[in-house]
């Protein structure tokens, strides 16, 4: 029915010239569900791929957590999954441990929290919330997904090669990653990693350019930039960060490919390995770190900003209150985005970088705390005197505010070069970034899934299972990562296969057992989610058009996956998206499509 509604509507010549003929013919299964150019389908493809990748990454973390808590113990599951080669007698092989850590990190950072998070929600919400028929280029959008898919497949397939996947840590610092003699993971596995990342970067650029162009050009009538929901602002800044920084990662990867395969020495100098002095001289491994972190730091904001945008929207809708300080929220997004480009050196305080440069990076890094603090306080104030409706999405959003604060606070320690000397590369860092970007972004993503599930799949997820899922996830996240700071403060380095080689760490075994128990609980909680997610997709109760009584435009579309989103004319926007509980209004929400009453002031325009 969707096609017909749209095909002959008069209006659609006015706002969306990009959108012509394709409605006139019936779509085949392939063009509708596989090589689809519809933003809604692409968004669902991204989400489901990311969920599957997240399951793999989580499973990997379970395996290495077992090893860390009970080193030398035999686990049938390790043997069952990794075979005799890497899990002989159920004991994890040290190189496989490194590989699991590496691929867990890579999948979570890139496939799940960049591709999955931005890909899902930018695709779903940008056209919906700005009032567009689709993305500026449906074709590039489709390519973006398929490059992402290809990249995911290549990354996973590296488990099936003889020498195993890349295992030099997700940052793959050369020379370790450049020299096949250095470890098995730097052989074919590393090549797979680089190819996979190259496709991922292509996907990310295609997506990002599309998001930017769509947001800037395809906003419906009345949708000024200061009437955009904060989700869209977050996606816009995220996309800009990605477009500016991912090419730098590509160049870093390219030089690494040259060093690995063509005998160049961009990153190599004076190396004696495997009983042989290498010819390469004059390069610098530090160059790679500069290039990598020039992407790497914006990357963590690429991960967290969409989650913050989603949270802004969900907290406002469910507090039944306008988001506090809308303009300050936009300003802080921009400030964070800008600053994220001039802080990369804080990953390199102790690489031998000039100490003066270090102090510059201390200053710029700590500056980020200011816009972040503004965001945190604004969230809390949005809750104040609200009329809070605890949907599962709202719980996840509140959880995000909590982890964003506690993870951000430990960043103050790490940003301080003096203190970084002591905690650099220890579990303190692992705890910090998992809370502030890992857990926060995952909570944000799950919040988004619960909140927009009715839009994506026209059905509701089960609320009670959602509650259980949230509390188990939230408790286990803190249970894993709060005590982990103490490992770091006790001087335990990250990426150690076992801590048993050092008597000084013997009394921390219990701590590792505690962490692993919470990790297992967390993994179990995700099974509940997976069940709820897939079950509700087909059997969940049908949703109504605007289940959360929200103001934004996506809830004005019919409960069907109409190609072109609105069957008739595109909606016209008259107000900002946060008119919740506005005095003098009949209901506690005023959708953006309702014209301003006489003498009424638009909230966003202050």
């Amino acid at each position, binding site marked *: 029915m969707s096609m017909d509604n749209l095909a002959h509507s008069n209006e659609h010549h006015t706002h969306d010239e990009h959108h012509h003929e394709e409605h006139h013919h019936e779509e085949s299964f392939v063009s509708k569900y596989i090589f689809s150019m519809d933003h809604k389908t692409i968004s669902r493809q991204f989400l489901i791929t990311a969920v599957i990748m997240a399951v793999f990454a989580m499973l990997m973390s379970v395996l290495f957590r077992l090893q860390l808590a009970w080193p030398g113990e035999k686990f049938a599951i390790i043997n069952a999954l990794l075979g005799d080669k890497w899990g002989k007698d159920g004991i994890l092989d040290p*190189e496989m441990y490194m590989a699991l850590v590496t691929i867990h990190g890579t999948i979570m950072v890139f496939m799940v929290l960049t591709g999955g998070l931005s890909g899902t929600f930018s695709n779903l919400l940008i056209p919906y919330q700005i009032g567009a028929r689709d993305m500026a280029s449906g074709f590039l959008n489709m390519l973006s997904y398929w490059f992402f898919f290809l990249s995911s497949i290549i990354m996973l397939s590296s488990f099936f090669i003889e020498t195993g996947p890349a295992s030099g840590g997700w940052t793959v610092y050369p020379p370790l990653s450049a020299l096949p003699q250095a470890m098995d993971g730097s052989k074919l596995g590393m090549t797979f990693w680089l190819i996979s990342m190259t496709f991922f970067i292509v996907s990310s650029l295609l997506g990002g350019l599309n998001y930017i162009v769509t947001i800037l050009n395809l906003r419906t009538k009345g949708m000024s930039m200061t009437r955009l929901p904060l989700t869209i602002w977050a996606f816009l800044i995220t996309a800009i960060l990605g477009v500016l920084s991912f090419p730098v990662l590509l160049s870093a990867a390219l030089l690494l490919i040259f060093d690995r395969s063509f005998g160049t020495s961009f990153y190599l100098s004076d190396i004696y390995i495997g009983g042989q002095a290498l010819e390469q001289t004059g390069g610098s491994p530090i160059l790679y770190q500069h290039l990598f972190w020039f992407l790497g730091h914006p990357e963590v904001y690429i991960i967290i900003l969409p989650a913050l945008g989603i949270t802004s929207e969900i907290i406002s809708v469910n507090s039944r209150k306008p988001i506090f300080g809308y303009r300050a929220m936009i300003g802080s997004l921009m400030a964070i985005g800008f600053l994220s480009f001039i802080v990369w050196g804080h990953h390199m305080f102790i690489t031998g970088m000039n100490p003066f440069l270090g102090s510059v990076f201390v200053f710029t890094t700590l500056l980020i705390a200011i816009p972040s603090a503004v965001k945190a306080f604004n969230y809390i104030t949005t809750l104040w005197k609200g*009329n809070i409706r605890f949907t599962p999405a709202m719980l996840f959003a509140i959880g995000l505010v909590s982890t964003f604060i506690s993870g951000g606070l430990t960043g103050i320690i790490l940003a301080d070069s003096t203190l970084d000397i002591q905690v650099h590369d220890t579990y303190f860092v692992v705890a910090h970034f998992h809370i502030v970007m890992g857990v926060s972004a995952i909570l944000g993503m799950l919040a988004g899934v619960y909140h927009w599930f009715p839009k994506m799949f026209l059905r509701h997820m089960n609320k009670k299972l959602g509650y259980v899922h949230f509390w188990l996830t939230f408790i286990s996240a803190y249970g894993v990562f709060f005590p982990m700071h103490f490992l770091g403060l006790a001087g335990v380095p990250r990426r150690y296969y076992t801590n048993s080689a050092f008597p000084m760490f013997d009394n921390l075994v219990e701590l590792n057992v505690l962490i692993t128990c919470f990790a297992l609980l967390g993994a179990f909680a995700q099974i509940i989610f997976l069940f709820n997610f897939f079950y509700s997709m087909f059997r969940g109760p049908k949703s109504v058009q605007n289940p959360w009584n929200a103001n934004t435009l996506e809830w004005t579309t019919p409960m069907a996956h109409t190609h072109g989103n609105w069957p008739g004319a595109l909606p016209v926007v008259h107000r900002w998206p946060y008119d919740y509980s506005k005095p003098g209004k009949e209901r506690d929400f005023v959708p953006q499509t309702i014209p301003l009453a006489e003498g009424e002031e638009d909230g966003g325009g202050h």
Partner: protein
Amino acid sequence: MIKFLVYVAIILTVLAIGYLVRVFELASALKGKKQEEVTDGDNRFMSKVMLTYLVVFFSFVIWVLWEFGPKLLPESASEHGIFLDKLFDFNMAIIWIVFVLTHTLLFYFSYKYYGRKNNTATYLPHNNTLEMIWTVIPAIVLAIIVIYGIKSWNKITADADPKTTIIEIYAKQFDWTARYAGKDNVLGASNYKLITSTNDLGMDTTSKEGFDDIIVKNEFHIPVNKEVEFKFRSRDVIHSAYFPHFRAQMNCVPGMTTMFHFTPIITTAEMRKKPKVVELMRGINQIRADRGDKPEEFNYILLCNKICGKSHFNMQMTIVVDTQEDYEKWLATKKPFLSKALIGSETPVIKTKEQLTEKK
């Protein structure tokens, strides 16, 4: 057979859950209520869980501090470590205050303002005064943190006294080697192309400065209360020389030399007598005894803190801080690496300075 039974059990469990959900669905459909709708009851219940969580979370935090706080590193064994620890405590105090404050507000507001049907939220889009307050206050606090931090950083990274004892720490997969600059306090030249099985560091046998260089493995000694300057090099991949007890760390990067200097202030023997260390070791040896391992004495350790390959987790060297006397005694027992017998017998030997300088 057991495997089969396990699979059957898993399948049955999944089916059972499926049926339970179905029954639950039908039951709520019969009652005519929409299970997806969030009721006032849900809100009230969740708000209470929020408050409970706040209490449980803070209790957990306190328990972890109580239980694991005493198991952290003992007091700093280096001079700069003392003010590093002070800076840490200062930053931590601020962090705790903000953490407790924001979390109390976040969960208390979630508890207090739970939704009720006949209630309306307060329309409050923004407030310039409030926003100014929480922009300016963090800015001031951060300015203090930045200034305090950078001051400490400059102090730590300032150039070492030229007369400071120089020790080279040489990293490779997967061990450490220490080289003492000897009487002239100058390290002899070395070249990675000269590395052989007997000349691990690739020392240039024609470099006079290197004739008195002493090379040790497994354990190295440093004198107390005297500044030591470490020069770090790596043979293969990036390693990181981490001295947790001295609050010191520096990466070892192939192709370049990095530096870090510090002054140890507590000898190994003194440290072993500190009450906190005695307590720590008692706990550790208790655990080791239960496992059947032999007891250990406290030692300062140098470990690798940058992923470097398969045995990254076991790349260690013991550091012994001695009194000046003991240090000199220990050093006197060590012979220079390039003893007469070795000079000339090493192959390949680069004879001329020119050939050597070609490298850089």
